């Protein structure tokens, strides 16, 4: 049996792995089969991660975090978790390849998944003009007319990025003001290819085999109108990925995993959670990384209390005092 397993390969998972590996706990990190690196893999320039004054590409940052975690002995497995048995003192994690791994402690850092519009035509048109990833698919909309749905930072980033390719980018938002940060709002507002469509929601996506437009519903008057488009990018937020722990861990009203105060302690002893899966508010790479640190230290404390010598020594080195 191992000391610790970490599920998730975003900033939270890899930062937890860096700490756990430096504590000589030889963490096993389950990175997923096709979403290695998490959400930052689908971003371009990250300008707000401390320590990179010139900015850094999201995938490059994740590559560095992984290299740092592996340098100290983290073992990375590229597979998906299919089931968890975490009630007892031994935490069991079963993977898509059928293997089951056991550990005394578990850190759950699975992040969040793109929220869908909830329209029946979404499945059919996905990949045929309907996209959740501007950096992946924007390239195919050169000189086209497209729209981004959403009002947050990611919607602004996508809209601004998409103007590299498209002739016209509408930003469709339900309200008459944005929740995006000032700098991202300004960047979008200054871009002459971007036009805001306020107080509007997507009632339907038009097109049989590819997107041809959307039916917009005015959120104030209820009036509907057609907007012709070649492509639609959805950036309306994310939902925490908790399906593997439903019925096992307590959740909050917001759907995130419940943790005790500022700790990473979940409702089960020996199970710790970090990153976007516990955070409905901030959801930044750096807050996720900080959260991963908290989880690793909480896990070290838990393991030390069970007599794990490496964990106890690491805690002394970090001058960490439990917040019990």
């Amino acid at each position, binding site marked *: 049996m191992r000391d610790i397993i970490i599920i998730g390969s975003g900033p939270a998972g890899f930062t937890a792995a860096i700490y756990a590996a430096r504590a000589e706990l030889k963490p096993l990190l389950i990175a997923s089969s*096709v979403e290695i690196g998490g959400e930052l893999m689908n971003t371009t320039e990250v300008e707000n991660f401390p320590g990179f004054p010139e900015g850094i590409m999201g995938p490059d940052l994740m590559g560095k975090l992984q290299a740092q975690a592996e340098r100290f002995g983290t073992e990375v497995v590229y597979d998906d978790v299919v089931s968890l048995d975490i009630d007892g003192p031994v935490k069991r994690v079963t993977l898509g390849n059928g293997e089951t791994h056991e550990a005394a402690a578990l850190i759950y850092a699975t992040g969040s998944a793109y929220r869908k519009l909830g329209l029946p035509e979404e499945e059919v048109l996905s990949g045929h003009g309907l996209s959740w990833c501007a950096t*992946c698919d924007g390239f195919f909309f050169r000189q086209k007319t497209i729209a981004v749905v959403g009002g947050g930072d990611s919607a602004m980033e996508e809209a601004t990025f998409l103007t590299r390719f498209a002739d016209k980018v509408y930003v469709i938002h339900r309200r008459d003001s944005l929740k995006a940060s000032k700098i991202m709002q300004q960047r979008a507002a200054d871009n002459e290819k971007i036009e805001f469509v306020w107080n509007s929601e997507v009632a339907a996506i038009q097109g049989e085999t*590819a997107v041809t437009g959307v039916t917009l519903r005015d959120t104030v008057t209820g009036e509907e109108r057609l907007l012709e488009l070649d492509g639609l990018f959805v950036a309306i937020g994310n939902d925490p990925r908790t399906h593997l722990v439903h019925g096992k861990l307590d959740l909050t009203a917001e759907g995130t995993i419940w943790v005790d105060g500022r700790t990473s302690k979940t409702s089960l002893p020996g199970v710790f959670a970090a990153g976007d899966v516990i955070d409905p508010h901030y959801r930044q790479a750096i807050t996720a990384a900080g959260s991963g640190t908290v989880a690793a230290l909480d896990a070290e404390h838990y393991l030390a209390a069970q007599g794990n010598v490496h964990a106890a020594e690491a805690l002394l080195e970090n001058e960490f005092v439990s917040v019990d």
Partner: protein
Amino acid sequence: MSARAVNEATFEQEVLNNEKAVLVDFWAEWCGPCRAVSPILDQIATEHADKLDIVKINVDENPQLAMKYQITAIPAFKVFEKGEVVKTVIGAKPKPALEADLAAYIS
């Protein structure tokens, strides 16, 4: 075995005139999910080499092919049989999901 690159010059011979079924992986350097799924395709290519050829087309270098096959999202996988597209799968997926999508061509 890693999937070999095909371009506009070799496409007809390698894909359209291929005796076997061919899966074409439309991808690009800057596409994170494309890079993530690449080792999975290599595994499938190795395990099913007798039934299915797997080749890659870089959409940056071969825009005409991307346009011809109406690629608007990558990674996009198109299976060709006797020169015709018989199956399209879009997006990076875990190996079991991809194998399920491709069952008709690999089992």
